[in-house]
């Protein structure tokens, strides 16, 4: 006997997703020959791989992910970074500098200090040790200006949209730089403070309504409204 739940059904932990020759994907598990959900979310499947798109969850680092973190501690030769994951990330000095670090001649605080925000990339993570980060790639490094927004990490893909549809639209319409950390931390920086504030507002809207349909259209509409309102103000002045 074979059974498969309809795509995009709202499921709770323990709900039956499929029975028979199916594999348990993300946020799902298998018990004898049945696949069940392990998180609150929306069911989906690609062929025989059945999974759940979680509506809330914590961030698990993966190699190659771009993340935004806060430096929380410093030891000889490395920094500890809070990347909003269950595990504290580690950043070695040789992943920051392109030359050997000489502890006799320079201070680590001169490079990064506790409390600094950084945009980094996850080098490796295997759950036996904390995830390792690197800054040795273009665009990575200390964050010096902009605003930070936090979002449930599971909703980040929605913010990006299919093939980047949502994020491309946002950057185009708002003229702000939006840097997405896969760990649910988003950096917004723009020249116009008004636009930056609007971007923050829109990001909060996306988080609240991530699972509803027609979101991109509604966001586009909102941006248009806000923009015209702003122009209206200017012309009346």
């Amino acid at each position, binding site marked *: 006997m074979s059974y498969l739940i*309809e795509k*995009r*059904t*709202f499921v*709770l*932990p*323990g709900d039956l997703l499929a029975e028979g020759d199916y594999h348990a994907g*993300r*946020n799902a*598990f298998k*018990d004898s020959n049945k696949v*069940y959900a*392990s*998180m*609150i979310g*929306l069911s*989906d499947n690609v062929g025989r791989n059945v999974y759940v*798109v*979680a*509506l*809330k*969850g*914590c961030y698990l680092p993966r190699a190659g*992910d771009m993340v935004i973190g806060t430096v929380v501690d410093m030891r000889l030769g490395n920094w500890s970074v809070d990347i909003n994951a*269950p*595990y*504290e990330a580690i950043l070695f000095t040789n992943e920051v500098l392109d030359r050997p670090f000489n502890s006799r001649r320079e201070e680590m605080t001169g490079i990064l200090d506790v409390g600094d925000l950084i945009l980094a990339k996850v080098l490796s993570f295997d*759950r*036996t040790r904390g995830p390792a980060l690197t800054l040795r790639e273009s665009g990575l490094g200390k964050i010096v200006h902009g605003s930070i927004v936090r979002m*449930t990490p*599971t*909703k*980040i*893909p*929605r913010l*990006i*949209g*299919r*093939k*980047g*549809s*949502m994020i491309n639209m946002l950057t185009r319409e708002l003229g702000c730089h939006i840097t997405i950390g*896969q760990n649910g931390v988003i950096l917004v920086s723009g020249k116009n403070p008004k636009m930056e504030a609007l971007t923050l507002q829109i990001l909060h809207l996306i988080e609240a309504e*991530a*699972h*509803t*349909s*027609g*979101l*991109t*259209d509604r966001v586009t509409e909102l941006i248009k409204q806000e923009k015209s309102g702003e122009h209206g103000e200017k012309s009346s002045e």
Partner: protein
Amino acid sequence: MAKKAASEKLIRKGVRTDGRKPTELRNIRIDVGPLERADGSAYIEWGKNKILVAVYGPREVHPRHLARPDRAFFRCRYHMAPFSTAERKRPAPSRREIELSKVTRVALEPAIITELFPRTGIDVFIEVLQSDGGTRCAGITASSIALADAGVPMRDLVVACAAGKIDGQIVLDLNEIEDQDGEADVPVAIMPRTGGISLLQMDGILSPAEFKEALALALDGCKQVYERQKDALKGAYGQADTSMDEEGDSVGGDTHE
């Protein structure tokens, strides 16, 4: 004399002290995610019981040596607020609270997939704000909702409900007076998918036949509570459109994979 005899009766003309029928649950109201700063939270009103549950984690464990290399370390704290009882309760954890913390942990742990988060810790804090009997069941029920709200992967939700014996009759979901003056109390927690029992206690005296009857009644009560649990979670998250258009497709579309 007659007055006293009347007050001692817990069931009169088939109606209990709070107006319920013998196999009737109290009213249950569940609120998902009332606490902004917790990873997951739930508030439950079960009759006159009022309980707030907060879940934190998976996160780093402190003290560090408690971390397990193969799974998450799961902790529970059941605590009654000093103002939660008729007589002021001293705020320090009592023998009873330590026991209830332990049974709650054991009741919830089999449902959580702790292997996914080695070396981390998951904490559950149960704070009883007002108590009227059956707080451990209400606490377990609310905890499993808070865990689901926190996005902790679980094999199943956990539901709990008690049955007991008052005035020689097996009844469902005892309140404080019935618990105090009744003959027995049997709290049960189950994982409804498999029907596995993760908590089973008995306080008082029951014959084997009576115990079976009480257990069956409690299991029936659990199934009713499970429906409330599902409704609460659906109410909180379930605006999710089941007929999402092309746009909704990209939820978790793995654009970064």
